C-alpha cells in the first residue's frame, strides 16, 4: 500500500508539466548559470580580471616597461585609451582626467597614473623624495585598489628587470626577497572544483524547495481536497501515510540530485563516475533529510500560503548560512559553527569531502550521522504536528 502511494506520486508528477520544470529544469538552469559565472566554463575571456585604466604621463622607456608589464599580467584587463566614440572613431589616449571620469562611471575599477619623473623612482632606494604612481579608485570597491597596488609592484620588478643593463635575473622569482612557488593540493585533476561546489549547493537548495513547497504541499492539498480524510478513514493511518509521503518526496529528491550531477558531469566535466559511491551515500541521506524537513513544514502549516511563506523563509535562511550561496569555509569560524544547525550545511560538507577534498568514504561518517539524526528528528516532529489531522 505504501508503494502504491509512491507510484501514484510519480504518476501525478509525470502529468504535471509545470512541476516537472520546477523540479528538474530550473535547478539545472540555475546550476549552469553559477557554473558558467564562477566555474570558469565558457569564460575564456576572463570575466574575473580587474579592469584597469593606464595613463603614462612619463612616456619613457622605463614607464613603458611598466605599462608592458601590466598589460602582460593575466589578472588585469588594461585600457590605455578612452572608449571608441562610434563606428570608425577610435578612442583617444587616456589622460588623468578621462581616467578619473571612467572610474566615476564604473568603466574601470582603478586608474593607474604614471606621472613624469616616476621612471627615476623605479627600484630606486636612495634617500629623498620620489615621484609616486597614483591610483585613482572607487571607494565602493576597496579590494580592487589593493589588488592593483600589489600587481603594480610585481610589474615594477618585471619592468626593472627588462630594462636593467647589469645582469638581469633570469626569472621573476629570483628577484623576490623570499622566492616561493604555489602548488594546488586539491582539484588539480578537474576543470574547476567550483563546479562540484555549485552542483551540490544548488541541488541542496532546490531539493529543499521541492520537499517543502512541492512535496509537503501535496499533503496540504490532500487535506484541502478531502482525500486525506478518506485515506485516514481507511486502514492506512497517519504513520503509513507519512511514511508513504516521505518515501515519495525522498525519491523525487534523489532524482533531482542525480539529474543535477549528471548534467554537471556531461556539460561541465564534473568527475561523477570516479566518485560514485560517495555521491550515492550523500545523495540518499541528503534526500531523506530534505524530505523529512519538507514534511515538518507541511504538517506545521495550516494553509498553502503558510507553507509557502514558511518554506521560503527557512529554505533561503538555512541555505544562506548553510553555504549554498557562499562557501562555508569562507565564513567566520563562529558562523561556520552556527550554520551546522541546518542539515543542509552537513550535506554540503559531505559533498565537498567527496568531490573537492576527495576524502575516503569513512570520513563521511559525521555527515551521515548528522543527516540521520536530522531525518529522525524531523520525522518525529512531523508525526507530532500531524496528530491534529487525526481523530478529533
Amino acid at each position, binding site marked *: 500500500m505504501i508503494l502504491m502511494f509512491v507510484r501514484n506520486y510519480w504518476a501525478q508528477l509525470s*502529468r504535471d508539466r509545470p512541476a516537472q520544470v520546477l523540479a528538474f529544469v530550473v535547478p539545472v538552469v540555475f546550476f549552469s548559470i553559477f557554473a558558467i559565472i564562477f566555474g570558469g566554463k565558457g569564460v575564456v575571456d576572463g570575466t574575473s580580471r580587474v579592469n584597469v585604466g593606464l595613463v603614462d604621463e612619463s612616456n619613457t622607456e622605463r614607464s613603458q616597461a611598466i605599462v608592458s608589464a601590466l598589460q602582460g599580467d593575466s589578472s588585469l584587463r588594461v585600457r590605455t585609451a578612452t572608449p571608441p566614440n562610434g563606428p570608425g572613431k577610435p578612442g583617444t589616449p587616456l589622460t588623468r582626467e578621462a581616467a578619473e571620469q571612467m572610474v566615476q562611471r564604473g568603466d574601470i575599477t582603478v586608474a593607474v597614473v604614471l606621472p613624469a619623473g616616476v621612471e627615476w623612482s623605479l627600484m630606486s632606494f636612495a634617500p629623498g623624495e620620489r615621484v609616486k604612481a597614483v591610483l585613482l579608485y572607487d571607494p565602493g570597491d576597496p579590494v580592487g585598489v589593493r589588488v592593483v597596488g600589489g600587481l603594480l609592484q610585481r610589474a615594477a620588478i618585471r619592468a626593472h628587470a627588462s630594462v636593467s643593463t647589469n645582469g638581469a635575473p633570469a626569472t621573476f622569482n629570483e628577484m623576490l626577497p623570499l622566492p616561493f612557488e604555489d602548488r594546488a593540493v586539491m582539484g588539480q585533476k578537474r576543470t574547476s572544483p567550483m563546479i562540484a561546489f555549485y552542483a551540490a549547493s544548488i541541488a541542496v537548495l532546490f531539493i529543499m524547495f521541492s520537499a517543502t513547497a512541492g512535496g509537503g504541499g501535496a499533503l496540504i492539498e490532500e487535506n484541502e481536497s478531502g482525500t486525506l480524510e478518506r485515506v485516514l478513514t481507511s486502514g492506512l493511518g497517519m504513520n503509513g501515510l507519512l511514511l508513504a509521503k516521505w518515501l515519495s518526496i525522498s525519491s523525487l529528491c534523489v532524482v533531482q540530485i542525480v539529474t543535477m550531477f549528471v548534467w554537471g558531469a556531461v556539460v561541465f566535466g564534473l568527475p561523477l563516475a570516479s566518485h560514485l559511491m560517495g555521491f550515492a551515500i550523500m545523495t540518499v541521506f541528503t534526500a531523506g533529510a530534505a524530505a523529512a524537513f519538507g514534511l515538518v513544514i507541511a504538517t506545521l502549516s495550516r494553509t498553502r500560503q503558510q507553507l509557502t511563506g514558511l518554506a521560503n523563509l527557512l529554505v533561503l535562511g538555512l541555505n544562506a548560512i548553510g553555504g549554498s550561496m557562499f562557501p562555508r569555509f569562507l565564513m567566520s569560524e563562529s558562523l561556520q559553527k552556527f550554520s551546522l544547525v541546518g542539515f543542509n550545511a552537513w550535506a554540503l560538507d559531505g559533498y565537498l569531502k567527496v568531490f573537492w577534498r576527495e576524502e575516503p568514504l569513512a570520513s563521511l561518517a559525521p555527515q551521515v550521522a548528522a543527516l540521520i539524526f536530522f531525518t529522525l528528528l524531523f520525522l518525529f516532529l512531523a508525526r507530532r504536528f500531524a496528530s491534529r489531522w487525526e481523530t478529533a
Partner: protein
Amino acid sequence: MAVLEIREARKRFGATQALDGLSLSLGQGEMLGLLGPNGAGKTTLIRAIAGRVRLDGGTVSVHGRTLTAGAARPDLGVVPQENALYPLLTARENLETFGRLNGLEDKHLRERAAWALEWTGLADRAKSVVRDFSGGMKRRLNLACGVLHEPKLVLLDEPTVGVDPQSREKIYDMLSALRADGASLLLTTHYLEEAEARCERIVVIDHGRAIAAGTLPELVTQAGLAGRVVRVRLERPTASPPAGFRTENEGSILAANIHDVGAELPGLITRLQQAGLGVRDLEVRTASLQAVFLELTGKELRE
C-alpha cells in the same frame, strides 16, 4: 437488528457542544435522510460514525458491535461532500487506490474497478485524468470510490451538491442500486425535496440533538403542521384577506390551514366570493418538508 445504532452521542469542541445526546437508528436496506441547519452537528455525526471523531459520551454500533474511534470499519463506506479524488490520477487509478486502501487486492480489485466504471458510466473515460472531468462525473466517481469495497453501511455527505438534474438523477439511480444489493444508506442533504422524495425516514437534528424523526407525515404531525394547506392564487392581489387566510407573495396568494378538506374547503371559497376576490388557481396539499424544517429549526440564519 438495526444496521446502525447511535445512542446518546456527545461531543464538545471547546465552547461548542457539537453533539448533545443525539440518538438515531438505521434499518437494513433503509435510506435515512439526515437534515439540519449549518452547524447542527451533521458532519460531526458522520465523522464520529466513520471513526474520525472520538465521542465524549454515547456509543456508535454497527450490526450490534460497538465501534471505537480510530478502529478499522471494513463494513463502512464514506462518501465525503468534497470530491475527494486525486485530480492527476485517472478514473481507474483513483478507484484502484481507494479500493486497495479498503482492502481490495489483485483480481478482485480489478473486477470491482471495472464494475465501478460501468456503474458510473465512466468506462470510456477510465484512462482520463480526473482533472478534466465535469462536476457530475467527479461526483459519480467520488461515490464509486466510497462503495467499491461493497460496504453494508454507506455514509453520504451531500452526494448531489453542485451537479445538474441529470447527474442528480443518475446518482439516485446508483443509490437505489446499492440499496437493492442490501446496503443501508445514511444521507445528509440540504435539498429538502430530494430527502422528501427519496428517503423513507428523515431525522432532523439541531444543536447536536435529534429534534424530530420519522416519515414525512409523522414529521408534519411532530411539527404541529398536521392537516392541509390551501393556497389560492388570486386574479388581483389584496391587502386585506378574509378571516382565516394569510397573505403570501405580496397579496397575490392567500393561504389557510384546514383539517377536513370536504367540510372546510367550500366555506373558504364562499368567503373569497363574498370578499369579491376572483380565484385563478387553487392547491390543497400537506405541509412540505421545507415548512416542517423551518417550523422545527426556525428561520434565523445559521453560521
